[in-house]
């Protein structure tokens, strides 16, 4: 058998996750170079290398929209082949050179799509050089983990992004209401004596930005919509035909603010965990199609950021490893189909970023993940692939594991057994 990197690769004995098929269909997938060549009931060519999927799902590599660190081992563990990097870096991704550097930082095994900072230093005051950063490789613009307080700045920013046809990824928390809050108003925050902000801080921010989208027709992606009221607003705005997309993380789908008990800083997130009612609304919004993207929000934070009193700790969770298994739980629970799951974690984020990936389609980049959807394992914050183990899901038994990951047709990660 020829093993030259240029010889075609056929993955056999798999179950293909395809658009138009709610559940996977048995079949093979052939890769030539770094692209998908053929899909379906194909036989490997004489010179092909063959990879036996042994019944695993053959799915598009996950495209993680909005991560805070490039943490290749964690992404590979989680079957993630591309990630959009938030501009909240040190230094901030607000200069073309920073963007260019970030865009090359993961290659060839992992692709980073830098998100250009919307404003200089993410201060929300002066627009950054967005067009030059687009030239440098930015696929979208982001306001960072911050809200742009000045509506005038936000208006001009949306106009500018619409002109450049760049999506704008926004964080929705009204700053006046949220202030220094670290928790959502409610029993838990009151009991723990934590600075708290009403959940409406989110919907108020979203209401303003929807009005601006209506004026500018900018493509806006709300990175995390986590409240019943916020989801109702975006649902109505989408029905109106506005160019909006909506994301969330598994944490907000599976945990409520009860998880803050005992001052667990691994559950300190931005936006903060919400009430059980909001969590139920978020699950319903995944089910009815209001939510377009599930992302990890991957933000590994070590003890220097997390082993602190709750309000002094930094927000964020290491989510790359748990994104797929926790999302597969939604399929097992009957909320969504397997096809829809991979729209949420791959196809839709790729479409927002405008990259030819995220779906099994001839001509697309051969970013392929093989997934054993039933394989059981246990999340263990002490033994994670991520650079830090700050997961609020520590000790949780989960099902579903990436068994092999191909980036551009090359096998970059594989587990034995």
């Amino acid at each position: 058998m020829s093993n030259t990197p240029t010889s075609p690769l056929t993955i056999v004995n798999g179950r293909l996750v395809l658009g138009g098929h709610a559940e996977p269909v048995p079949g093979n997938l052939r890769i030539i170079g770094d692209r998908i060549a053929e899909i379906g009931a194909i036989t490997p060519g004489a010179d092909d290398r063959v990879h036996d999927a042994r019944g695993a799902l053959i799915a598009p590599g996950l495209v993680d929209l909005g991560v805070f660190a490039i943490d290749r081992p964690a992404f590979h563990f989680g079957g993630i082949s591309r990630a959009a990097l938030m501009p909240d870096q040190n230094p901030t991704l607000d200069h073309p050179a920073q963007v260019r550097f970030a865009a090359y930082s993961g290659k060839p095994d992992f692709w980073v799509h830098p998100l250009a900072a919307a404003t200089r230093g993410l201060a929300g005051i002066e627009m950054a050089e967005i067009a030059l950063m687009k030239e440098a490789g930015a696929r979208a613009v982001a306001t960072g983990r911050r809200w742009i307080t000045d509506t005038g700045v936000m208006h001009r920013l949306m106009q500018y992004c619409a002109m450049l046809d760049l999506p704008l990824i926004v964080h929705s928390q009204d700053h006046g209401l949220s202030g220094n809050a670290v928790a959502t108003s409610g029993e838990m925050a009151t009991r723990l004596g934590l600075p708290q902000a009403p959940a409406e801080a989110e919907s108020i921010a979203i209401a303003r930005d929807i009005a601006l989208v209506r004026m500018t027709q900018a493509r806006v992606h709300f990175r995390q919509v986590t409240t019943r009221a916020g989801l109702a607003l975006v649902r109505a705005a989408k029905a109106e035909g506005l160019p909006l997309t909506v994301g969330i993380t598994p944490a907000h789908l599976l945990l409520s603010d009860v998880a803050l008990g005992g001052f667990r800083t691994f559950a300190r997130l931005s936006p903060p965990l919400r009430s059980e009612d909001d969590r139920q609304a978020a699950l319903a919004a995944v089910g009815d199609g209001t939510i377009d993207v599930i992302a990890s929000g991957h933000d590994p934070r070590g003890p220097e950021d997390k082993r602190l009193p709750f309000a002094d700790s930094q927000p964020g969770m290491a989510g790359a490893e748990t994104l797929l298994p926790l999302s597969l739980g939604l399929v097992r629970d009957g909320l969504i189909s397997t096809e829809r799951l991979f729209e949420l974690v791959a196809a839709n984020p790729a479409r927002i970023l405008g990259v030819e990936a995220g779906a099994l389609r001839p001509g697309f980049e051969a970013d392929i993940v093989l997934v054993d959807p039933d394989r059981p394992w246990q999340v263990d914050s002490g033994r994670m692939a991520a650079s830090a183990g700050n997961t609020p899901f520590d000790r949780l038994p989960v099902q579903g594991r990436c068994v092999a990951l191909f980036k551009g047709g090359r096998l970059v990660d594989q587990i034995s057994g």
Partner: protein
Amino acid sequence: MTSPETSPETSPELRPTRRPASDYPPGRAAFPHRHLLGIAGLQPWEIEYLLDEAEQWVDLNRQASKHDDRLAGLTLINAFFENSTRTLLSFEIAGKRLGADVVNMHAAQSSVKKGETLIDTAVTLNAMRADAIVIRHGSSGAVQLIADKVGCPVLNAGDGTHEHPTQALLDALTIRRRKGKIAGLRVAICGDILHSRVARSNMICLSTLGAEVYVAGPPALMPPAVEAMGATPCKDFAAALDGADVVMMLRLQHERMQGQFIPSPREFRHLYGLTDARLAQAQPDALVMHPGPMNRGIEIDSLIADNPKRSAITDQVEMGVAMRMACLDVLTRRGRGVAGWA
């Protein structure tokens, strides 16, 4: 009219009947907790056990010789990361009266100012082999964080806006001695509830012991979901005061306010200051309490604060020492190898 100089001994105090020891489970089962981090999570009988234990120390503290040697040889560290006068002094006196070697650590003079993390400080205190650590810190949850890292009992002397359990216990002891009971009393807690760890601990403590707790304050200073802590929110001060047996006033905590919560202290006094006229809405024998330090003329008028027939404020301070002696005694029993507790 009683003169303001009346000493606590002559203030109208009732001695409640203490439960006999046989009412409590034997040994450690009476208070099975390693630390005292908050009132939340304590059973009513565990709270009552601590109150009963404190009675003997009230008696001792009123004698000429106020000394007991049960903590002799033990090191008590008071680690105060936030300024305090009365609580620190109260714990220091409590430790010394029980014979412990007491060391006070103030954040202002510690390596905390040099950037040492809280965990490093905790590990350092632990390595010095303290037998009990009393901690006050400005962040909610900080005391629990330290407790998880040290091998000795930790007592929370106030963490952020979370809990201040010994204050709630001493308040309960004060009420019990002045009113003869706690169950069934109507207690009003008024003022800056949002920023008050005293209010949180007291809401839980007093409702757990069977009191009806009402809270009132300007809306911006009222946290949501106080019902979950056993309290009933009132729409105004008058509603909370109506028929109250105990009126507990809280200090306006300017230092914790981020942004403007009330227009001015003067306006706060206009709406929420405890004056003679307002106090008339409470029971004629209503007890007035304040955890101190008081902002005289803002949340409470001097005439009320200094009237020993109404005010229990100096009793609270007195009970504080006894209550803390009881907590130190009970929590160190395991380490001291007391029979049934080791």
